[in-house]
């Protein structure tokens, strides 16, 4: 009995070790419970977020599949991490493609979403996430300026390579007052997206169609 009493004494190292392990076990259970209660919902909501973002560049009536399910990873030196190419299909045919790219901006990595028609014409571009200077370079956001829509309708066919640059570099695209590096990075990213799309198409001329048709 005196043994049990001494174990319950707060100064006993055995009690302290037990206290630590019991509290770790309890919080682990709490975390497992929290994870189980929220995880399915979080995954669903995040998927919805992705589709919502996609909807900004890719009208929902253009596809009847889930573009997030058919993704290809494309690597390129100009990108910070491999681009994700998503295929939008209508009645089994590729109706559009969306690329998610991460490039280096001025203040940190910048995520863009570019939607392209199969023939290489841009449907729309959005900057999904960035850390550029507010007030100077955030005109790349559609909420702040319509600058980003200048890319709509452009393609490698109708815009020569040397024109894919900001005006300061003798290209076609406006820079912002006090911020050249940000628009330069965006132009470069869009050009990279077009090149990646073209080379992917060239290497998968008939491939993906057959893969998905059972």
């Amino acid at each position, binding site marked *: 009995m005196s043994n049990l009493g001494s174990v319950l004494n*707060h*100064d006993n190292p055995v*009690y*302290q070790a037990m*206290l*630590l392990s019991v*509290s*770790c076990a309890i*919080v682990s259970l*709490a*975390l497992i419970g*929290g*994870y189980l*209660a*929220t*995880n399915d*919902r*979080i995954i669903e*909501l995040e998927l919805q*977020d992705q589709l919502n973002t996609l909807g900004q560049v890719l009208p929902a009536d253009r596809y009847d599949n889930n573009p997030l399910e058919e993704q290809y990873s494309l690597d390129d030196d100009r990108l910070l991490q491999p681009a994700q190419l998503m295929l939008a299909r209508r009645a089994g045919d590729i109706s559009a493609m969306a690329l998610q790219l991460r490039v280096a901006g001025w203040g940190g990595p910048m995520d863009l979403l570019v939607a392209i028609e199969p023939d290489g014409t841009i449907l729309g571009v959005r900057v999904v996430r960035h850390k550029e*200077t*507010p*007030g*100077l370079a955030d005109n790349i956001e559609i909420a702040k300026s319509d600058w980003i829509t200048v890319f709509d309708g452009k393609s490698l066919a109708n815009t020569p390579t040397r024109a894919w640059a900001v005006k300061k570099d003798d290209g076609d695209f406006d820079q912002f007052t006090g911020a050249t590096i940000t628009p330069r990075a965006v132009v470069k990213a869009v050009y990279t997206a077009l090149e990646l799309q073209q080379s992917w198409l060239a290497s998968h001329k008939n491939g993906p169609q057959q893969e998905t048709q059972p």
Partner: protein
Amino acid sequence: MNYPQLFKDGLWDNNVAMGQMLALCPLLAVTTSATNGLGMGIASLAVLILTNTLISAVRGVISPQVRIPVLIVMIATAVTLTDMAINAWMHDLYKVLGLFIALIVTNCAIFGHAESFASKQPVIPALADAIAMGLGFTWVLVAVGAMREVLGSGTLFANASLLLGPGFAWLETTIFSTSPDILIAILPPGAFMALGFLIVIKRLIDQRLRNREEAGLVQMQH
């Protein structure tokens, strides 16, 4: 327990941010707008209430020698659970505050109060202390956020309806129709300046109050 004094301490005298100079990391990082400040304040308040009550409830079994690791796992768990809950059930708010919720764990005010108050006091005073400290932190976050937002973007409580629901759209005000664009207010240095000015104002008010008190005492002696 002297509750009025507890609240006076939390809201003004011993305010987390302006009196104790704690929790400056989340304070400086999120306050680019009043709405962000309010969101962070509410999240911190929720975690403070959770941890203070919980720790006070189990204070009898925690041995002083290992109290620090026990408190740390409890606080980290409370923050993680809050993070998951906000992500699952208040997803729009999570998109605004997401990154910063994990930062609450670095909020020394929470650990400080778990250690110095909750682990020594019964549940009800610990709960009152959490509410007082949390509200005190929240109003400073909102004040710093409001100063920076008005100067930098010319608005006040922009996107408040995203945080509080569409019923609060009336909070969203445009102070200047052409934004003054004092960029530095939104950039990190602006956070230090806004907090600095707030602290100066608090000190000036405190000094004036003290002077008046002393003058009153002198008159009474005569």
